């Protein structure tokens, strides 16, 4: 599973979706990557699997960074949640769910966070039109 782009910074690990928890657990407990910085995704329409969930970790002891990538299918965009390992994963996964519709198995709370209740679709997917509007309060005529 190769990323279509050359890597610049930092080190990058491509992990099959089933091994995510083991890999991250190893990174946290054995390699000292104790700070989860960021969870996001990249949408590659046309590729299979379509989504790439991207994690960034930092070590507060060795000051190294690592990037972990997991590919997920469009039909079942699900990946294991990291909330058991990192408390901050809760909010970041909620945001990623909002924006890309990735389901984080084990995150008990995937309510909308930046969007609002009842918002249809996932705006950062490439097939969501940039000019689409979903006003919560109807415009005045």
């Amino acid at each position, binding site marked *: 599973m190769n990323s279509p782009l050359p890597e610049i910074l930092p080190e990058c690990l491509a992990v099959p979706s089933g091994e995510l928890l083991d890999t991250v657990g190893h990174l946290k407990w054995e390699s000292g990557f104790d700070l989860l*910085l960021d969870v996001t995704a990249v949408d590659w329409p046309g590729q299979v699997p379509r989504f790439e969930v991207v994690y960034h970790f930092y070590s507060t002891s060795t000051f190294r*960074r690592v990037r972990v990538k997991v590919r997920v299918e469009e039909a079942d965009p699900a990946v294991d949640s990291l909330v058991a390992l990192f*408390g901050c994963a809760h909010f970041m996964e909620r945001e990623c769910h909002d924006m890309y519709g990735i389901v984080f198995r084990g995150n008990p709370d995937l309510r909308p966070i930046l969007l609002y209740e009842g918002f249809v679709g996932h705006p950062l997917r490439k097939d969501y039109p940039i000019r689409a509007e979903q006003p919560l309060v109807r415009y005045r005529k």
Partner: protein
Amino acid sequence: MDTALPNPIRPAFGPSTEDGAVVVSIGPSHPATHGTIQVIAALDGEKVQRVDVHCGYLHRGFEKECEAHTWHNLIPYVDRLNYCSGLINNFAYCEAVEKLMGVEMTPRCRYLRTLLSEYSRVADHLTCIAASLMELGAMTPFLYLVMIRDYIYEHLAALTGARVTYTYGRIGGLARDLPEGWLARLGEILGQYEMFIARVHGLMDRNRIFIDRTRNIGALTAADAVHWGFTGPILRSTGAPRDLRKDTPYLAYAELDFDVPVGINGDNYDRYYVRMREMDESVYMIRQLMDMLPPGPINVDDRRCTFPDKTLVYSEIESLINHFKLVTDGPKVPAGEVYLAHEAPNGELGFYLVSTGGGTPYKVHVRSPSFVHMGGLPRLLEGYQLADIIPTFGSVNMIGGECDR
């Protein structure tokens, strides 16, 4: 008439799910919180049992909008993330793009960016401390601090042309060089800063009312802070001396002499004091940088990203085409991805950029400290009094612009 508006949020709990607790909703527009955020709290008497934090009221589709603009056009957008220190956002974003392009900034630009980052950090910390002190009723220190902040804003306006949203960084350099007399005025402002900050220390540090409201309130251990993703002054207030400027030096920080102030308890008082001390360190760094500033150009001489001189644009065809292509197509950034983080006043500000080789980004993601801190906010509020929400929230310094994007 319209029916009742739908509730934009779904609270994690209602009065019926909390045994006998009173559920109150604070915000999103509350006179005592700076920042549009809603806190739903279950109270036992005056004590906060459980908290549900809702952000997103300032969400404006920043990341989606970025995918439809050229790399240059994003610079004004990143200003509006943390609008208390727009320059640091500018420089972090520009450096991330430069890294993708393999552009090395000029020495003068490197030192100037460092100087202005520290100057912005002072302005940001002044805003944070001033606002949180005012919310506790301390009007005089608020006015002292905001006065200095206003000197800084006016001074930066003389350089960049804007008070808050500077748009001063450029890919491969800066918008313009320092105007005449700018450094002399900088020295004056730093002197005034020291005079007024000493007064604030005198008014607040051993003030009984202030200590009662902040000491041992919203306390956090270092391990908890890392677990919840806290960075910046909040992490340092717990005693962990983690600062990207020291740990993984970028810009010119490796050549500067400075300390990383840390707290002991990780409570509101420590967060106040760490910020106060950090401003002193920033001023110390600015003074060093004023002497170190090398002469020379501020922009790299690279036609892929730097605009040609205006006189050339009007006089020769190659420069005209170069200018035209840079504006319409945007700078061609080679395919690749980068994550680059700077130590922003609130913590780690990271830009994750993906390029597929065009003039517009394929994806832009901002790792904003405020958003992550909001995830850990319940940890700081639960178990304390309802009235403690205000000083604790103030000490976290949540900035709606970067939290909600």
